[in-house]
C-alpha cells in the first residue's frame, strides 16, 4: 500500500509519514497540491491523505485532480477546522472514503486504511 500525505505543515506530514513507515506503510509526503500533482507523475499511490485546507488549492480540488489522473485512488481527508459534523458531510459529498480530525490518532488511521483496502 502506497500512501501520499499532503499538508502544508511540513513537521506534521514528515513525522506522520515516518510513523506510517514504522508501521509498514510506504508513505511519501508533500506540502502543497502542486507538489502532489508533480509527485504522482513519477509514482502511483493507492491512497492520498489530504488536508482540507491547503494554500492556493483546497484539498477538495486536489482530490478531484488526483482522481482524474488515477481513478483507482482512495482518499482520506483530515482537518483541524470546523465542526466534525460539517466535515463528515462535506467529505462524503466529495467522495472521500474517510475523514479525520486533527490531531490524528495513528492507530485509528492505520485501522481505517487497512479497512479500505481489505474490502
Amino acid at each position, binding site marked *: 500500500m502506497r500512501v501520499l500525505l499532503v499538508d502544508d505543515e511540513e513537521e506534521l506530514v514528515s513525522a506522520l509519514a*515516518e510513523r506510517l513507515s514504522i508501521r509498514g506503510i510506504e508513505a511519501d509526503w508533500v506540502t502543497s497540491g502542486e507538489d502532489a500533482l508533480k509527485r504522482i507523475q513519477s509514482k502511483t499511490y493507492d491512497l492520498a491523505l489530504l488536508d482540507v485546507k491547503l494554500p492556493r488549492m483546497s484539498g477538495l480540488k486536489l482530490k478531484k485532480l488526483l482522481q482524474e489522473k488515477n481513478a483507482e485512488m482512495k482518499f482520506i481527508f483530515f482537518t483541524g477546522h470546523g465542526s466534525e459534523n460539517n466535515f463528515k458531510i462535506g467529505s462524503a459529498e466529495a467522495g472521500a472514503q474517510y475523514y479525520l480530525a486533527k490531531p*490524528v490518532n495513528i492507530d485509528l488511521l492505520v485501522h481505517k486504511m487497512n479497512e479500505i483496502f481489505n474490502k
Partner: protein
Amino acid sequence: MSIQGKLKPKFWDYQDVAAGPFKRLFNFRRIWMLAVLLTTVVTLVPLISIILIDYKVTQNSIESEILLRTARLVSNTRRTISFFLTERRSALNFMIQDYTLEEFKNPDRLALTLENLKKAFGGYIDIGLINPLGIQEAYIGPYQLEGQDYSNEWWFKEILYRDVYISDVFMGFRQVPHLIIAVRHTQPDKSFYVLRATVDTNKFDQLLSHLEVDGEGDAFIINHQGKLQTPSRYHGKVFETLSLPVPSYSPRTQVLEGKNAKGKTILIGYAYISETPFILMIVKQKDILMKPWYRTRLQLIGFLAASVIIILIVIVGVSTYLVSKIQEADYKRIISLHEVEYSNKLASIGRLAAGVAHEINNPLAIINEKTGLMKDRLIIKKDQIESSTLIDFADSILASVERCAAITNRLLGFARHIDVSIRPINLKEVIHETIDFQGKEAEYRSIEVSVDVPDDIPQFESDRGKLQQIFLNLLNNAFAALSDGGHLNITVRKEKMDLVSITFADDGCGIPAEDLARVFEPFFSTRTMKGGTGLGLSITYGLVQEIGGNITVQSELGKGTSFNITLPLKPPKS
C-alpha cells in the same frame, strides 16, 4: 414622589444610558415642547384673533348704536321744542298781520284773543302791544302792566333790529321762569309796533322731564352762556350755570363724549335750536348704557378663557401621550438593537472560536505526531535515540506549544477588550490584531490583505471592543465577497478637522447599485442562502455611530466594494 414628579412624563428626563452618546435619535423633551408650541400657536392664534375682532366689532356697533339713539332723541326733542316755539311765534305773527292797531287797542278784543290763544295753543300768560317808544299801550294778563315802559329793557332793544325775538328764560317782574316772544310789525308808513307775549316755560320743563332718557340721562336746555333754562335732574336747577362747557356751535345735532365732574365718561348730545338762544342738551352716563356690552364682554372673555384652558389641556395631554408612545417605541427599538448586537457578538465569537480551533489544532497535531514518532521509534523500532535527535523533537514540540500559547494569548487579549469602554487606541495595533484571526483563511484562499497605516496617526480615545467588532464585521464581509486570490486594502488616513478615516476596499464581487442603498438596513442580505444573517452591516453601522463615527459605502458590481469609516480623534462630549 412630589406632585410635580407624578405629573412629569417619563420621557422628560429620559436618557438612554446604555445607548451611548450617539444613539439618541430623539430629544423627547424638545419634540414635546415643539409639538405643544406649534399646536398651541396654530389653534390659539386664530381663536384669539377672531374673538378680538368680534370684541371690537361688537363694541363698536354697540357704541355707535348708543350714539345714534342719543342723536335721534336729541333731534326729535329739538324738533318738538322748535315746533312749540315756532307755533307760538306764528300765532303772534298771524295776529300782528291780521289785526288792526285799533283791534289790539280794544281791551275786550285783546282779552278774547288771549283767551283763544290759551285755548288753541296753551302756554301764553299775557300779551301786550308796545309802541315804538317802548311804552306798553295795551296789555291783557294777570298783572297790571299797562303803560309799562320797556324802552330800557334789553329785549326791546333787540327787537328794534329784528322782526322776531325770543328771549332767554328769565324771572322778570313776575319771579317765575318765563320767556318772551316778541314780533314786530312795520306799517307802510315805516312806523312799527311790537306784539309781545309771555310764555310759560312749564311746557318745556314738562316736555323735557317726561322725556325717557336711558343711561341715567338728563335732558335740559341751556342758553349760549351755559345757564340752565330748564331744571335738570343731575346738572343743577334752573338759572344755575352748567358745570359742563358750552358745546361749540353746529347747525346739526351732535353727540360728543366727555367726562363729568366725577370723572365718568358721559355722552353729550346737543343741538342749537335755530332763531332762539337755546341749546338742547341730553347727557347720558356711558357706563350705564354700556352695561349690556359689559355683560356680553364678560361672556366673551369667559368663553375665550374656557376655550384656551380646554385647548391647552387637550394639546398637552395629546402631546404627552404621543411623545410617551414614541419614547416607548424608541425604548423597544434600543432593546431589540441590543439583542441584535448581542447575537452578532455571539456569531463573531463563534467564528473566532472556529478559526482559533483550526489554528490550535495544527500545532497540536505537530505535537501529536512528534511525540507519537518518538514513542514509535522507542517502542516499535526499539531505536536508541541520540540526544541531538531528542533535542530536535523537543524544540519542535516547544515551538508548537509556543504557537498554541501565542494563539490563546491573542484570543484572550482580544476578548479582554470586548467589553471595555473608552481607552486610548493604537489603530494599527487593533487592525492587525483583528486581521490575525483571518490570517490563515487569507493564506488558504490566497487573499492578499494589505494594511497601510501611516505613522502620523495619533493614539485616540475610543471604544476598543466596538472597533474590533466593526473591523471583524467588515473583514468577514470582505472575505465573503472576495473570491480566492482577491485583494483587500485597508487604508488609514488622517483627515482634517480631527478626523481619521479607515477604508476597507476589496476587489470582490461588488454590490448591485439597487442594493447599495439598503446594505445598512437590518435583515437585508444577499447571502441569506449562504448563512448571512443580514445583520452584520446594520450592526456595524450602529456601532460606528455609537463611537461617534460615520460609515459610507461605494461599490461597483464585479469591481469591488469600499467601506469608509470616519472617526473623531477627540472623544464626544456627552
